[in-house]
């Protein structure tokens, strides 16, 4: 019952926010519902409910392993949204606030969906609900980004629907009833028609991979993240991509049950490494620090894909990485939002010397950059180390070498942009702009908290969290 509340409470909040009359006080609903959602998620995390195998929705081990991370990220972002929307008082925020809450509710639905069709409906609905969030700034460039997001994302999500139907047909052809719950599909296992399972896997991987932002289906990402407000970028990178990743994990589990696991792992491995390579190369070229974050996100989606391809230990590492990437990327997006506000433009050419103008945001941005490039005590270091270990244990030495090479290139690309923006003497235009932006505690605390969480997660990963990742692995790879 509580698991259904995770979905319904934010949706009710969205209705409330849409009906609320005052623009000035409306954003306050975000942290209120963020706290309720996080409380519910924490309660479910500590006392996981029993989920009936045939149920369509449920807080199963996989949802338990990642949904609290999304809830936590939303909570911190919602605290940031209040001062942010106060700064942007010139724009009406009714749609923005209502849709942020809608996205939270639909993300909860997507994570908990145990039915392929419902999973698709939730993912598509998240995609659509995010559209007005992307063009909140209302500039022509923002509409251009939104158009690309809609067209590429819409096509991807359409292909994943086709893939879902193919998986249903695999069940029908194998003598099943075409039941699209993951439990029923896994139970049918080797009885599924192999050619249809493989067709479905390709389509679903391309479809949900588009949503995740795996290369070469990542083209919408730099545009969308570059034009959207920082808080939307943080939620897309840490929440929406996660739904797509868990979708791929659930489908991978069905494909594994059908006996085609090795094929699925090979494609995931290649796609993951390809994403990392493409992202690393683009990171060396980009001059815009918000687009840089998008490419970094593509790179980390590649790491997730690689982890998912390495069997049980790899999946556990990938789930760990979902947490560490989501929290660290959140800190980066929020501090980048501050820098963008203060500098006026998010490029190396237009912004310089931000360490002098906004010292606190710049410090968080630099620290976050080191954290995401796997500087030791931060969480990404440990999760990536686990991916490396899983890779070596599975005998993929070459893949691990490529992985490390890509990380090095990405490090070079990230430091180039970050220090280009932070170092040096500020431009007159930056100084002029920065006068209107004050680094209040309200805009500094949220990214700092996320960075602190990333550090804490790295220093002492709670045992209960590790246990939840292993439980999810047991759900995905049931031992006969």
């Amino acid at each position: 019952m509580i698991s259904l509340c995770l979905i319904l409470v934010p949706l009710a909040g969205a209705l409330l926010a849409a009906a609320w009359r005052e623009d000035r006080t409306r954003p306050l609903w975000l942290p209120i519902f963020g706290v309720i959602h996080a409380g519910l998620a924490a309660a479910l995390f500590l006392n996981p409910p029993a989920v009936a195998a045939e149920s369509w929705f449920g807080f199963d081990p996989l949802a338990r392993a990642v949904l609290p991370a999304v809830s936590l990220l939303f909570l911190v972002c919602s605290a940031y949204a209040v001062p942010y929307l106060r700064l942007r008082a010139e724009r009406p925020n009714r749609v923005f606030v209502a849709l942020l809450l809608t996205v939270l509710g639909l993300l909860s639905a997507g994570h908990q969906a145990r039915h392929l069709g419902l999973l698709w409906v939730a993912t598509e609905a998240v995609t659509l609900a995010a559209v007005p969030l992307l063009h909140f700034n209302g500039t022509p460039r923002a509409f251009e980004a939104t158009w690309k997001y809609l067209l590429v994302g819409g096509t991807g999500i359409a292909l994943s629907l086709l893939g879902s139907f193919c998986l249903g047909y695999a069940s029908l052809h194998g003598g099943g009833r075409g039941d699209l719950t993951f439990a029923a599909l896994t139970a049918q296992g080797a009885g599924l028609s192999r050619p249809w399972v493989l067709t479905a896997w390709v389509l679903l991987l391309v479809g949900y991979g588009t949503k995740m932002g795996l290369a070469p289906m990542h083209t919408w990402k730099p545009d969308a993240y570059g034009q959207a407000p920082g808080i939307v970028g943080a939620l897309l990178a840490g929440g929406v991509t996660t739904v797509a990743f868990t979708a791929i994990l659930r489908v991978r589990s069905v494909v594994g049950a059908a006996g085609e696991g090795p094929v699925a792992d090979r494609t995931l491995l290649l796609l993951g490494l390809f994403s990392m390579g493409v992202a690393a190369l683009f990171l060396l070229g980009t001059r815009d620090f918000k687009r840089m974050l998008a490419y970094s996100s593509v790179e980390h989606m590649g790491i997730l894909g690689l982890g998912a391809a390495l069997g049980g230990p790899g999946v556990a590492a990938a789930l760990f990485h979902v947490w560490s990437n989501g929290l660290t990327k959140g800190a980066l997006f929020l501090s980048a939002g501050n820098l963008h506000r203060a500098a006026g433009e998010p490029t190396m050419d237009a912004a310089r010397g931000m360490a002098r103008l906004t010292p606190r945001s710049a410090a968080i941005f630099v620290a976050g950059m080191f954290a995401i490039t796997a500087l030791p005590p931060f969480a990404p270091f440990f999760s990536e180390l686990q991916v490396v270990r899983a890779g070596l244990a599975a005998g993929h030495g070459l893949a691990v070498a490529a992985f490390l090479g890509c990380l090095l290139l990405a490090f070079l690309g990230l430091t180039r942009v970050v220090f280009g923006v932070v170092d040096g003497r500020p431009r007159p235009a930056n100084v002029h702009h920065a006068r209107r932006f004050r680094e209040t505690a309200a805009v500094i605390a949220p990214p700092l908290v996320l960075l602190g969480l990333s550090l804490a997660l790295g220093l002492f990963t709670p045992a209960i969290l590790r246990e939840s990742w292993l439980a999810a692995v047991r759900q995905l790879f049931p031992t006969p």
Partner: protein
Amino acid sequence: MNEGTLNLLVGLAMGLNLLALGSSRLPALIRTVAAQGVVLGVMPLLIEHETLDWRVAAVAMATIAGKGVVIPWLLRRAMRAANIEREIEPFVGYVPSLLLGAGGTIAAVGLARALPLLPEHSGSLLVPGAMASVLTGFLLLIGRVKAISQVCGYLILENGIYLFGLLLIHSTPLLVESGILLDVTVGVFVIGIIVDRIQRAFDSLDTRKLTTLRE
């Protein structure tokens, strides 16, 4: 029982694909997509079952209303607001795209033979029809530059998926079907709004102008 009629309709939908690929005028393209929507809406009623299930009838009615009336009306409105009538200088010309579409349709029939089908579906054109429509949708999405033509391509792609979904109409629950239909309709609404905004921001619906964001 009605397999012959059903195949006739799928064949009609495949013909409409080619018509869409060959038409340079936007009103004709929108009409083609609307006609395909109506053809698709009738199909669930023809798929064999003893008594007419009210839920299947509801899906059919909603499809006809959505794909045949509401969406084309939205597109026509956007077209009039943008004051454009035809697609000039597409990336892929009309004759090449027609040839590609025709070749793709033949390939789809061949490919459907290669995939294992249930005995009751072996004589059906649904699978090749679905693949041909998905391909046509892609061709329009890639080959045309006007936003409205691209939306039409997206709709034809969706129609292809719908055709495939008909194979599963008795096993997917109504809740899922209606969720999918709702999402698609809302999706086109959202696309319509963005098309309108692009028109206002760029004073054009030529997607070649959307090139500020690049590396």
